[in-house]
């Protein structure tokens, strides 16, 4: 089964640090432990989502600015 990174909080998921900046992690890239893969905005505060497991060939399941629930799968990887 593919490895997953889930949202630790409910809120709005962002793939980039600011609207005009590139994504933290592009689809297809590798992810190392401790990498920031996105932000979750909850009640107007931003929380970084960090990878707790490493993987390759990242496939994002949540779009930029998507509303997410706690436990929602943000990215799958091999």
């Amino acid at each position, binding site marked *: 089964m593919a490895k997953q990174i889930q949202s630790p*909080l*409910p*809120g*709005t998921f962002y793939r980039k640090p600011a609207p005009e900046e590139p994504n933290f992690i592009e689809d297809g890239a590798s992810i190392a432990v401790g990498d920031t893969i996105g932000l979750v905005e*909850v*009640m*107007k*505060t931003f929380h970084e989502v960090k990878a707790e497991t490493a993987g390759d060939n990242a496939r994002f399941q949540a779009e930029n*600015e998507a*509303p997410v629930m706690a436990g929602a799968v943000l990215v799958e990887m091999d």
Partner: protein
Amino acid sequence: MDLTGKSLFIANRGEIAVRINRAAKALGLSVIQGHSEADADMLAVRMADRAVELGPPAANKSYLDVARVVAAAKEAGADAVHPGYGFLAENASFAAAVEAAGMIFVGPTADTISRMGDKVAAREAAIAAEVPTSPGSDGRIEGVDEGLKVAAAIGYPLMIKAAAGGGGRGIRVAENDDDLRRLIPQAQSEAAAAFGDGGLYIERMVRDARHIEVQVLGDGSRAVHLFERECSLQRRRQKVWEEAPAACLSDAARTRVCDASVRMAEAVNYRGAGTLEFLYEPERDEFYFMEMNTRIQVEHPVTEMITGIDLVQEMIRIAFGEPLRLAQDDVSMSGHSIEVRVNAEDPSNNFMPFPGLVGAMAMPANARFDTMLYEGYAIPPFYDSLLGKLIVHGANREAAMNALATALDEIRIEGLKTTLPLFRALVRDADIRADKATTSYLETWLESHAIDAA
């Protein structure tokens, strides 16, 4: 005024949407509540006569989308639109779009909103109305020599500000002449690089100040004040605790700031409910105008508690064309009121937001709780964390503090982390009981006090 048969669209959410629903119903209005997809279950939707979905959860695609909100209100056949606070409440193009669509905007004109939204224009309007502003240069300074002259007149410490700056950017603090000689050229070249404009001005720095604000109501020609509020307890520039009146003011100081506020409101032909914010320096007994907020404010209930006037109803009446019903002599105050903001945040864990499912609730017996909560409500994570406002009234400040302590002991909201434990600690704090807190007090206090989760 009979508003039966007329309808009001509420372009907001949370506790203020509940508050506006109540005021509108009391006036006989039919209520149309706008809401995002994430807010279909909110209390204001349940109270309203009709509800209209505005769009996805993200505020910029629902509550902040001017075209969408105006179209929804128009389509629903609304006679008027109430913007609440936050979101589009101080957006001049929204006010203009509502009126262009043939509806009433519950607030001042678009022109007043944009004039007061521009800090320089607002300061100029204040000076023209002889409202005290903080001492400083007359407009821009040309160089070090002029800076030294201004400094000799107003004293140190002072702030060197970039004319084109704002929001805390481009500010330097000078403690003496040497600082000023060194910092003015530096500030000039930096402002030129950052803003394309090296213009500077100087203001005296106000330390250990109180945040005092005056509530006004106007009908476009005449205005009255409803006394002042004291809101010095703030965290990250957000008020958490508000009182009315400001117990630190003498009657003479109160009269001075309230009269100045009425002058300003009348000078700008203010319509609706508005607030002038000041810093007050107790040592000098001086007020300095900061800004005017052209909306109903979160902390309006403490004013209602001491005056007995329903501010939201009054602003709606004025919006529908009724002249101001109150003469200044009709407004009197009685006792003391305190409000605390109950947020879905964990004060024992750096105020981490805590959206969750509301469990059992117990309400205090002798307090007002303006809230969006009901048992079983799932708080959406997409908006700010204000859940409600706990408001008490007493014969004097000490009685109000005691009433607050009792209300805080009685109120129970299960299932959530809230800021209630913070207030249970603050209400017993000796400095706060003695009314000693200035605007920096709470941040300093939090550095040395741990809050037990409860």
